[in-house]
């Protein structure tokens, strides 16, 4: 029993919004779709909901043609990245709205709406209009309205993106608990944030330019990004990429830097490669000279944007430090954590999972 998308295509003026999408969503699964803005995530959800018709391809739910069903007959719930509620109805009526449309008697609809409002922590707000709520509360109302109908398919389109940092953290935790109770549903959750996609998803799908470029278990994908593009999207900040070659048992990086080939790359033939290294796998040291282009503070870390003969790259420094723009710093690479990609960008070898994820 599943939702199956086959060869779904949506193009507009020659631009592919969805490019030959093939996906299978199983009941009880929680899928996160990770991609940059305009990657086609929203179009994918709108197509599943029926708000957009694909030009090509099939969409089947439990073996029957889902494309034939109009939006209002599909048992779908959706939460938009903008918090959409009905301004003329109070919170309780907003949440009860889909139940009333489905013919549930008023008393029962209100009772079920109250249960869900309790779940999202809005018990005391049922008489308010959406305009009288904070952004986080408005999004909770929208979420409650999506949950109350116990839809077969629950779609969430970057639901946290318009919230401030603190609320986002809190709601993300709530999501984990809330989704656990949705065993019968297919939950699809889109986001631009790798941490969100990894934390929430049972399965993760990476989208780029309307196509799917990788899917699998979140940690497996994180540890073995199939291409450089995947590695860029799934790491925040994006994985650093250096040009270089493997020669005589050494890695020769641009700018004349030499490293010993680590064990996990020992079997690779000589030739040109592109090497990937996460920002957290570089530290200040003595090997590579480079200049500070930008220095920002994030929480208790300092993020350095650096430029040297090796190229431009980003480094995470534990602790909060001041670096003036133009300062020269020395950087060490952790060669045990280097990924090697072909010149075309396909993953050839990466550190063993345990090694890659050890911090």
């Amino acid at each position, binding site marked *: 029993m599943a939702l199956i998308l086959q060869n779904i295509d949506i193009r507009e003026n020659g631009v592919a919004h969805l490019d030959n999408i093939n996906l299978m969503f199983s009941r009880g699964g929680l899928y996160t779709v990770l991609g940059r803005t305009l990657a086609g995530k929203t179009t994918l959800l709108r197509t599943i909901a029926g708000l957009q018709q694909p030009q090509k391809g099939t969409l089947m739910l439990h073996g029957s043609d889902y494309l034939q069903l*109009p*939006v209002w007959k599909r048992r*779908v719930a959706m939460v*938009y990245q903008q918090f*959409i509620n*009905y*301004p003329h109805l109070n919170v309780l009526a907003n949440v009860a*709205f889909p139940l009333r449309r489905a013919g549930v008697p008023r008393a029962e609809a209100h009772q079920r709406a109250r249960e869900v409002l309790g779940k999202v922590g809005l018990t005391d707000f049922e008489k308010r209009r959406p305009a009288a709520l904070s952004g986080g509360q*408005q999004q909770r109302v929208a979420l409650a309205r999506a949950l109350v*109908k116990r839809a077969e398919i629950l779609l969430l389109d970057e639901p946290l993106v318009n919230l401030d940092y603190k609320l986002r953290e809190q709601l993300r935790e709530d999501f984990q608990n809330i989704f656990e109770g949705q065993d019968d549903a297919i939950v699809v959750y889109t986001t631009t944030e790798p941490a969100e996609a990894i934390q929430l998803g049972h399965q993760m799908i990476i989208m780029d330019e309307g196509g799917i470029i990788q899917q699998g278990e979140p940690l497996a994908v994180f540890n073995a990004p199939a291409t450089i593009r995947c590695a860029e999207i799934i790491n925040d900040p994006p994985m650093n990429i250096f040009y270089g070659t493997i020669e005589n048992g050494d890695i020769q990086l641009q700018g004349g830097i030499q490293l010993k080939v680590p064990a996990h790359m020992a079997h690779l033939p000589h030739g040109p490669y592109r090497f990937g290294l996460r920002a957290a796998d570089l530290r200040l040291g003595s090997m590579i000279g480079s200049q500070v282009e930008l220095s920002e503070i994030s929480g208790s870390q300092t993020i350095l944007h650096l430029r040297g003969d090796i190229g431009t790259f980003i480094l995470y420094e534990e602790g909060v430090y001041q670096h003036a723009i133009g300062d020269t710093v020395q950087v060490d690479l952790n060669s045990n954590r280097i990924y090697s990609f072909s010149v075309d960008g396909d993953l050839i070898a990466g550190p063993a999972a345990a090694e890659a994820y050890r911090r």
Partner: protein
Amino acid sequence: MKTTYLLLKYLAILLWSSFVALPFLWALTTSFKTANGVTGGATYIPWLQYKPSLEGWKVLVRTGGQGIDIVAPYISSAVVTLSASLISLALGTLAAYGLSRFTFRLGFIKNSDITFFFISQRIMPPIVLAIPFFLMLQFLGLLDTIAGLILVYVALLLPIATWVMVDFFNNVPRQIDEMAMIDGCNPIGAFLRVVLPNSLPGITVAGLFCIIFGWNDFFFAFTLTFTKTQLLPVAVVALNSSVTPWWSLSASALVSVAPLVIIAFFVERFLSSGNMAGAIR
């Protein structure tokens, strides 16, 4: 500095208010004057400057062969204006929703062309429309009837209602219709249950335009009626005879403006913008 600014501001407001309100004051005092009171120049204080009289007002209700009857035209005007406005609002709102949300295409004709076609009918000067309207009503046998006037006013008001509502619906986020459909409404249900209840300000504006235009129109009321049916603006003008009765003219003018003032007073609170707050962020 701040005080000067405030003073200037209130002075400007005062000037403009007088400009707008003084004619009404003039009409109010004049309506209680007689011929002698009017000829003596502008005076405003009753009993002191002129002797108040109810002559002007008495003329408006026909009693024992005296005066003209303003009650019948009043009722006719109300019936014509309200019917035409309601029909125009109902049709115009539906048309506007269609034009705002769905794509129509007939050859090179697109939504925006259809919308422009609606308003283009109001670009022509009324005199151009008067003759065809006259001939059409004659053909239908509806000249000099309430029904005929309603028909003509719908033709005149529908473009206004449609135009105002298209603009309003274009500013109602589409996602709210989509959400209603996801929540189980078909397109008509989404319109009736979600879009319409949130469109009260737009409907109010459109309705107000319709009522004001319909109530005040003299031209079509004059050209398309003769003896059986008379609308208020025509009746007011008909008061004029060889001697202009300023007192009864003033009284009838006040009476005909009154409903619009009352409507504006009650409707004003629906006009507040920002009604869609809380729909989308």
